[in-house]
């Protein structure tokens, strides 16, 4: 084991400026292929949930957040292999993009984090800070600034992602019941 402390730690660590932290892991397309390696195509379906469907989700304790969802259907020939949905959640100081793969049995097949961004709490809630990352998913490089720094801390939680995955599973189930997805 070898540890070299940063100079700012040896001085006054509290005075060192806290900087933003960001990692890109996968593009949405890369994640979809990882989840369904046998798929030949991914068809885009725009799902619009009806007011009745939204009420039914609400009764299950699921806030659908939006009536409109973009779902990729993994296809091999004419057969459907499953579904992939892109989503983003915002925590206290973090913005997390992720993709969920759902099998034909309606169960989660895989979850991949696509990007993780963290900054000062107030910035994450500013639309301008979030806008700079819009559209970064498609074909984005795996790393930001070739920086492989790792972050260590106590409160990083995936509660928002877990809630988001539950919401997506329910939305896909509702859309399939309603005949919106083959």
């Amino acid at each position: 084991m070898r540890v070299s402390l940063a100079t700012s730690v040896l001085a006054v660590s509290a005075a060192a400026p806290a900087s933003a932290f960001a990692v890109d892991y996968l593009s949405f397309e890369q994640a979809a292929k990882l989840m369904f390696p046998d798929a030949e195509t991914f068809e885009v379906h725009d799902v619009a949930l009806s007011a009745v469907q939204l009420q039914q989700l609400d009764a299950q304790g699921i806030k659908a957040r939006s009536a409109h969802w973009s779902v990729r259907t993994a296809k091999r020939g004419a057969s459907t292999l499953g579904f992939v949905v892109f989503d983003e959640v915002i925590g206290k100081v973090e913005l997390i993009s992720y993709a969920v793969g759902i099998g034909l049995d309606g169960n989660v097949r895989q979850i991949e984090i696509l990007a993780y961004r963290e900054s000062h709490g107030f910035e994450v809630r500013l639309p301008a800070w979030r806008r700079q990352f819009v559209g970064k998913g498609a074909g984005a490089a795996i790393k930001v600034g070739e920086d492989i720094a790792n972050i260590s801390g106590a409160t990083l939680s995936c509660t928002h992602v877990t809630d988001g995955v539950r919401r997506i599973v329910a939305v896909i189930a509702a859309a399939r019941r309603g005949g919106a997805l083959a």
Partner: protein
Amino acid sequence: MNTQSRGGFARRARPLLGTIVDIGVRAGSANATPIDAAFAEIDALQRCLSRFDPASDIARFNALPAGASLAPGTATLEVLRAAQTLSVATASLFDISCGTGPDGWACRDGRLHKLHARTRLDLGGIGKGYAVDRAVQRMIDHGATAGWVNAGGDLRVFGDIELPVSVRDESNGGARPFADLTDGAFATSHHGGAHVSVAAPLCLWADALTKVVALSGDASHPLLARHGALAWLH
């Protein structure tokens, strides 16, 4: 020699262990298999160790009546033995029962015994570190020459790379550069406005010893030297 400290790594992340687990492997040294194997290992360990999974050894123990026992998996036993050692060495300062009765459980003859009905176990202070160590071993088994596993701040790096580690500012967000780490583990806890960071050869000890240092307030606690660890209060 510090090679490839930037760039040249395949990197993925998944939500596991109640946090986001970030895994990197030197590209070219192997394909994606080490990363998949590491995620599979962590997923399997979570099923044994998480109190939130009703089928886990820990959740089944928590549901036992006093006087009953169960046979946990080898991974659970290994973590429990380490926890028991720490509990004894710190006069129950390190307590996986979280105040519900450090003397309410015991490992004997490969079985986990429940001695008090009210005792509930939670491996949150040690399980992540253990899972990181096991995941690193799986990556090495699958041919990875260098990389890391970071379970929400409990991290370990292996191979001839120097990994920049930043510590998250728990009050205001953002991250501060803290250290460069080679062939070792690092963990940070946040207690009462202060950060406690520990570096150790194994992540199990880095993870668990942050709690010992935080609770004792002693950054030169004798247990650190016993596990080859260094600690910082900052």
